[in-house]
């Protein structure tokens, strides 16, 4: 496609080199600046602003029942954000997690209809979740397929299986001892059961991610897969494990979702996956992998959920709260890059100066 004459810019390489050196200097300066203003600090400010906003629009905002509602409405999304964080940090993605939720919800309904005991159903469904995750993991690691495409495929596949399992049936006669998680708070707290489970899991995930060799290996894999491999990390095994955890958590979210609404339906949780990804990215996790903290994601969960709730209290149309979610997401990727842009413009100016001087 390119004739030799079109490759003319190649001799200009030294100039590009010097530009990149300047970039590196600027970067270290930028890094210092960035460590001063961590993304988590921005999120804390955003959270404070949200609370102020919430309190100013409604006296209901900080009441116990509203906090219960916030946790109840978003518990499953929050829980699914945890394994998603690990997967994105390892440089992959799992778009099938909400379909796993749908399939596990359908299975709960189907098996309950057929007279299985509830504890047995829960164990079985969680095991199925692990299998679904393992399928993703095998396709991604053993066949070496891009996870974005694979999980779009399994997203459709699992959602389709949920439809096959339950069809248009709606199961809703679950025992009250299980469906109470959609009505009452966890004993001695104002939090919903799903919110409590989220907090417990968040501590576990945070510990694994930031304080174990396994957690460190995720960052290494996300940063540079080949280097991680040469450093003796079993990249494929780690990634498969992550997908299995993701499947397990997706199935757990499905069980909680079913009991919370006291309804098993094949399209339970459809459309949640993009919210999950949005929360993780809002939490400062890099979509390219290798960067992010679980604390950031927890903050993002709280900002996301309470902002949505505050907007609802202002009688903002419920479905349109996506504007705010999307806007936050845009800001969260543009803000850290704003510095880069400025730096690039300056280094271009410098490069221009050096090249005109030579």
């Amino acid at each position, binding site marked *: 496609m390119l004739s030799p004459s079109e490759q003319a810019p190649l001799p200009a390489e030294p100039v590009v080199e010097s530009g990149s050196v300047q970039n590196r200097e600027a970067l270290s300066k930028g890094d210092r600046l960035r460590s001063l203003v961590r993304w988590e600090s921005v999120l804390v400010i955003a959270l404070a602003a949200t609370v102020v906003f919430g309190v100013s629009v409604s006296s209901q905002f900080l009441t116990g029942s509203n906090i219960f509602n916030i946790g109840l409405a978003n518990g499953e999304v929050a829980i699914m954000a945890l394994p998603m964080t690990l997967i994105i940090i390892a440089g992959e993605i799992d778009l099938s997690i909400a379909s796993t939720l749908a399939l596990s919800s359908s299975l709960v309904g189907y098996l309950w209809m057929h007279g299985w005991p509830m504890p047995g159903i829960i164990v079985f469904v969680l095991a199925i979740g692990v299998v679904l995750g393992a399928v993703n993991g095998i396709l991604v690691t053993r066949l070496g397929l891009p996870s974005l495409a694979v999980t779009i495929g399994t997203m459709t596949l699992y959602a389709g299986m949920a439809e096959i399992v339950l069809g248009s049936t709606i199961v809703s006669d679950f025992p009250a001892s299980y469906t109470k998680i959609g009505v009452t708070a966890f004993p001695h707290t104002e939090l919903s059961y799903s919110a409590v489970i989220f907090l417990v899991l968040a501590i576990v995930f945070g510990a694994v991610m930031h304080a174990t060799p396994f957690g460190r290996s995720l960052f290494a894999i996300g940063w540079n897969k080949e280097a991680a491999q040469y450093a003796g990390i079993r990249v494929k095994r780690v990634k498969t494990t992550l997908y299995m955890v993701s499947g397990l958590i997706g199935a757990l979210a499905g069980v909680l979702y079913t009991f919370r609404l006291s309804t098993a339906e094949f399209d339970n949780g459809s459309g949640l996956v993009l919210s999950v990804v949005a929360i993780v990215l809002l939490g400062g996790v890099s979509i390219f992998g290798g960067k992010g903290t679980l604390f950031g994601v927890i903050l993002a969960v709280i900002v996301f959920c309470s902002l949505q709730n505050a907007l609802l209290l202002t009688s903002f149309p419920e*479905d349109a709260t996506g504007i705010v979610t999307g806007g936050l997401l*845009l800001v969260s990727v543009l803000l850290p890059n704003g510095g880069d842009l400025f730096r690039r413009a300056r280094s271009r100016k410098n490069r221009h100066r050096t090249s005109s001087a030579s």
Partner: protein
Amino acid sequence: MTAVLEVPKATPGEAGPSPRRLADVVFKVREFGIIAVLAMFVLITALIQPRFIQGQNIKFILTNATIFALLALGETMVIVARHIDLSVGSVLGLSAYLSADLFTRAHGIPIVVVFLVGLCIGAACGLVNGAIVAIGRVPSLVVTLATLYVIRGLDIILVGGGMVVASSLPNGFLAIASSSVGPVPYLAIVVAVVVGCGAYYLRSFRSGRELYAMGSNPDAAKLAAIPTGKRVLTAFVISGGIAGIAGVLWASNYGTIDSTAGTGYELQVVAACVVGGVAIFGGSGTVTGAAFGALLLATINQALYVLGISSFWDEAIAGLLLIAAISLDHGIAVSLTAALRKRSLQRGT
């Protein structure tokens, strides 16, 4: 792995032609594969249930497929350049509502103007996406995920619980999607021509080839003095504009437009592209392949319906097909790489 497919095209000289021909053959085989699967589906379904190849049914399939084929055209241009546009479903919804709403606001407005408005709405959304991606240098997955929400939210606020119903739309407008020559809707013919033009552009125009170069190796593309920012911006504007037009067609086809029009289309469009052999990380795939991918998905959908298999199987089959397509593409890429390497070893280069 896909990068290798493009390398022969960048190396001029005597080693050039034959690997290039090899890659060409592979692409042809890939497209032929989709057509074969399509033919197989049609044949088997028709054998079991002859009603499947009746005019009314074919017309239904083609009408359904055209909108997705059109969206897949824009999406392919973005994906081959190693980007992705997840906002097409929301853009379609916004354009469908705003353009159809024009008929109720301004009676007797020419239909051409409505199409132009749809195009402009879409192109404006695409411009926003493209500008943020190109200037902000932010991953397009994140940007278009965000604009997916923002544009849909905007749509919901604008619609505000109301909807446009078919009775408020002029008959001439509704006829656009429904009139046909025999079983083939005019729309399908127009879209086929448009897809043909798109395929010719991507195959033979310099700027079209540059999209592939960017998708194969972004750094090399930049060093080869390809104006990557400009190309990305153009690809997003085209994708958005096409989604805008598709929105007007959607309105013409369905007649009733509320704020949920086109919800979830983005992933179906990406699925059609991937089934049609467009590599999700850029650098390879054709517009015609993507259009056939869309047609295949629409055909399967209708085939199941005609066969009396519950439509609940739709999604699962589409998912399986998608995974099969990705695996196949990967296999082809791996063996092609091996073949090319062997060849260059034999030549001693």
